[in-house]
Structures are given as C-alpha cells and as structure tokens.
C-alpha cells in the first residue's frame, strides 16, 4: 500500500520533470488547461513517466477517464498497491 502523501510528492516530482518547472505544485483540481505545456504529447510523456515511477501500467480507458490531477493521484494509489 503506497502512502497517498508520498505518492503526491513523487507525482509532483514527475510533473516538475516533465513540464520542466521546478516551482510547479500539483493540486487535486488541476487540469491540462492549468499547466503550461500540457498538450497531447507531453500527456503521453507524463503517462509513460508515471508508469515508470510507480511501476504500474495504465489502460487506455483509465488514461482517457482522467479528469484532473486528484483523480490521477487516486488512480495511481489504487494501482500501486
């Protein structure tokens, strides 16, 4: 069982790396519209990097179903069990 707060910190690190912004702070309500450079391509980079970071595999449906960062984090915590 992965601790949600640890997962949040690790996810934040991934976001900072992918979007090359060391001051980026993720929030549950955050969506692609809130982050500069979050387009369909960096989205793929983000998914692949999250899979690597947490050792999980996300299905196409799960990726398509993502609404915001909070949902993403919840999915990660659930999958990383």
């Amino acid at each position, binding site marked *: 069982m992965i601790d949600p707060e640890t997962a949040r910190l690790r996810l934040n690190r991934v976001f900072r790396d992918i979007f090359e912004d060391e001051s980026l702070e993720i929030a549950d309500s955050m969506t692609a519209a809130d982050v500069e450079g979050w387009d369909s*391509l960096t*989205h*793929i980079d983000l*998914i*692949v990097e999250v899979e690597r970071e947490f050792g999980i595999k*996300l299905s*196409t449906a799960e*990726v*398509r179903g993502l609404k915001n960062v909070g949902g993403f984090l919840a999915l990660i915590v659930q999958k990383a069990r």
Partner: protein
Amino acid sequence: MLSDAATQQFLPLLKALFSENAVTAEIYEAPFDAMELEVLNPAAGLYAFKPDVVVLIHSTQALRARYYEHGMSAEFDRMSRIWDALAAGGVVRIVQCNFALPYERPFGQFDQKVHQSLYAETRLLNSRIAQAAGERADVLVCDIESIASYVGRKHWFDERLWDMSKTFCRLEFLPHAAQAMVDLVLAGQGRMVKCVILDLDNTLWGGVVGDLGPMDVEIGPHGDGEAFYRLQKFLLSLKKRGILLAVCSKNDLANALAVFDQNPGMVLKRDDIAVFAVNWDNKADNIRSIRDTLEIGFDSLLFLDDNAFERNLVRNFLPEVIVPELPDDPADYVRAVSELNLFETTAFSAEDAARAELYRQEAGRRQAQSSYTDVTEFLKSLNMQITLGRFERSQIGRISQLFLRSNQFNLTTHRYTEAECTAMMEDESCIPLCASLSDRFGDHGLISIVVAWPQGDLMRISDWLMSCRVLGRGVEQYLMNHLLSMARARSLSRVSGEYLPSAKNGMVKDFWRNFGFENTAGNLWEIEVSAYVPTTTWINPAGIDNEGEKHD
C-alpha cells in the same frame, strides 16, 4: 518529414542527434497523414521548403488499418508513386522507412504458408521496398524492421500509445529510430567510417604476441580464438565493401607481422591491412600518421582497442575519431560494434570493393610523417598513483607469474619460482621491489618488479621487468628515480644493471643507455649516483595527487 504516424516527438530527437554531429537541421513537418496531398501538390509546403532529404515514415499500425479495409495489394504502387512524385518535384534523396513486422498471426504458425496474411504481406512489402530501392539511387531504406526485431516486437509496439497519440513505437525506442534516420542522412552527406584502426593484442587476437609468440596467440575458428575469429570475419566483410583496415599497436613489428603471415587461424592477412603503425609510440601520433598516409578525415576513422587507457588517450587528443567502448568479453565485440550502427553508406559499387587495395598500395609508397603529441597534459590528468614496496607474501603468486610471463619489457628474463621469490623477500641483503599502479580509470594491479643487491659501494640491479600495459606512463622513470635515491640514502656511489638480449626483449636494448648508464663490459652498464639526473614523471605515491595534496 512525412508520415502516417505522429512525428512531433521525432522533431526534438532529430534536432538533438544532428546537433551532436555538428549539423544544424531545419525540419519541415508535413501535416499528419497527408503524404499524397503533399507530394502530389507542387504548391505544397514541402516543395517550397526545398528539402535536401525527404524522410517517409510509414507505420505498421496505419498499414494494418488499411490492410483490414482493403488489403495490401495497392500499397507498393502507392509508395513508388510517392517516390516518383518527389523525384519529379526535384527531391534527390528519399529515406523510406520499412515496416516493423506485425505480431498478429491469425493462422498461427501456418501464417508462414499463407500469402495474404497481414504478416506475410508486410514481409513481402518490405522485400519489395528493398528491391526497388536497390534499383534506384535516390531511395535509401531506413531499416525500422531490424531495429524492432532487435529489441523485440513484444517491446517495440505499444498499442496504447498508438491509440492515444499515433506514436508508432514505445517512447524509449523513438531515439533508436531517429538515430537510424540521422545515420542515413549523415552518410548521404559523406559522413561515414572509411577506415577501421585496430589494436592487436586482445583486440584482434587473444593474448599478447610478445609473450606468447606468433603461433600461440588465441585466434581460430574454435575454442578461445573463436570470438576474435568472428571479429576478423566481420572486419573482412567491411574490407570487402571498401572500408580500409589499419593496425595501430604497441608491439614489435616483426612479431605482429609474423602472426598475419604465419598463424593459420588468422582470417585477416598482411595484405588486408592498408597501413601498419606498429611501434612503441603513443597511439594518437600513430593514428595521425595513418590518417596522413591514407589522406582521409579524422571523422571517418573508427578506432577499436580493448585497452581503456588507449581509448581515452585517443579520445582526448583526437576527439573526432570514433572510439567506441568495447565490452570486457571479446565474444561481444562484433555485437557491440554492430549496435552502434557505424557502417552506413549510401552506395556500393565495384570501385568501393577495390578501394581497399588501391589505398594499401598507395600507403606502401608513401612515407608517413611522424608528428609529436604532447602527452604530458594527458598523463597529468590521469592522476596516476603508485604503490611501491618490498615483495609481500600475498603478492608472491602474481610476482612469480610476472617473472615467468614477461618477455618484452624484461631486462634479464630470469625465471623465478614462487619459492625463489619468497627467498628474495626474506633475504635482507636483497631489495626486491614490486609496484602497483592505478589511475582515474582504474587499477592496473601489480605491474613492475625490480630486484637490486647492495654490494660494497655498488647497487647491482639483477632484474627489471614491467607489464607492457603500462608502457609510456613513466613507471620505469619513477622506479629509476626511486632506486637512485635509495642508493644515495645508503651512501652508495654506483648503480649497475644488465641487459641480456632475448628473442623478445629488443624493446629495452637501450634501456640503460637512455638513463645515462655507460656500458662497462659486455652486457653490463653502470652509472655514478652523483651523475644521475632524475626524470620528471606524473606518478605520485598512492594517496598523493599531482599538486602534492594528500587524499585517502
């Protein structure tokens, strides 16, 4: 760049890879999946851009989708129409990607016998691309299939990425595909390996010829020599396609040539080598002289050497020369070199095949000019550290082994057993010294032995030998400085040494003379302690760096 897959991810990769090769690439990205629209329309952005090269990236996934709709019979004609339209539009170089073979096998293994299956049709399409490209000079094939099959289809395809973003393989393999494209484009600009420069001992054959002799190095189709034999077969195939082979080795030339001429296990013969630079000079100078002899650019030279020191020295002085890391195990040499995809070309003709011979003859006529590289800076940067002391019990095995095996840098070639080495260690009238060397690239272990005997006012040196791996570093100079200061500390007035010529130790025949010793009788040499001038070296006692600072 035209594609039926997403190309956005390729852009930064291609730019970075070109820039690594000092090429600034401007890349025009045609709209997604609009190949015909672009190439058939003279007013398209493609033609306004006036490309030097057009890269056509066809994906297996898009091909599969078309196959399920209407089969694959029209695919090849469609492709060759695109080539023709590009040629008509003034494009002189086309890089056509072939297809990673699909993993779907609706017939199971029977698929092999069914011509209309997706797998069989894709395979056929690949071979038609290869055949057609072989008949026209403007089309080069970017062999995506070989990359995909090398990493494995199971890993290559990521259908999720295709579904989400039309990415045609897993992200981690995009750089491989991009590199393959860049390699072809650079080859089209004349950037290709024209000469492979080879070390000998433990690169072209196993073991040290100076120690084992020409007939006993490891080379041949079976056993320990097979790995080297395989490398030589591969090198011969390069030579047959016009790449020159040269030798750069620290060795005795007669010894080295004897292997080529006499050892029946050798694939490469003396005539296969365009230039031999076999001597005890540093390899950067020798590669310069090979280059001058052959009159080709440094950036078209590939240097293969199992020794990390030599690789780093060449990288340091000749940064344009391609110097790949070689794996520890010779069995993997060919694979390591192949993975780097170093042997691109854009054409092959009968002249290419004959080129090696022409160069070899020309090189024979020309006298290579020697140049001098200042290796001081390099030696300094190595931060070499030596551990020097009397024999210790734990070292006796290695010490005896060195006595038995060292042939080339060995002044007197006395062979001592472990018992005899132990006796010297315990003899207080004897000074049995051994030295270990390390540098920032690693530890060379025990590499030199000197045995001296103080007698009256004389210090007599009975044995001096060193591993050829550490030639040219200043180890013998460091040891000589050390011995002379020992003699001085003991108030001895003279130091004497001996050179006993053997079939293999010609490289040290002037050893004593070079240190200022005078020939007193026969093989005996002597120097007044007060007359000795210490040599500067860049070696420090273990734990002390070049600035005299102490470290752990």
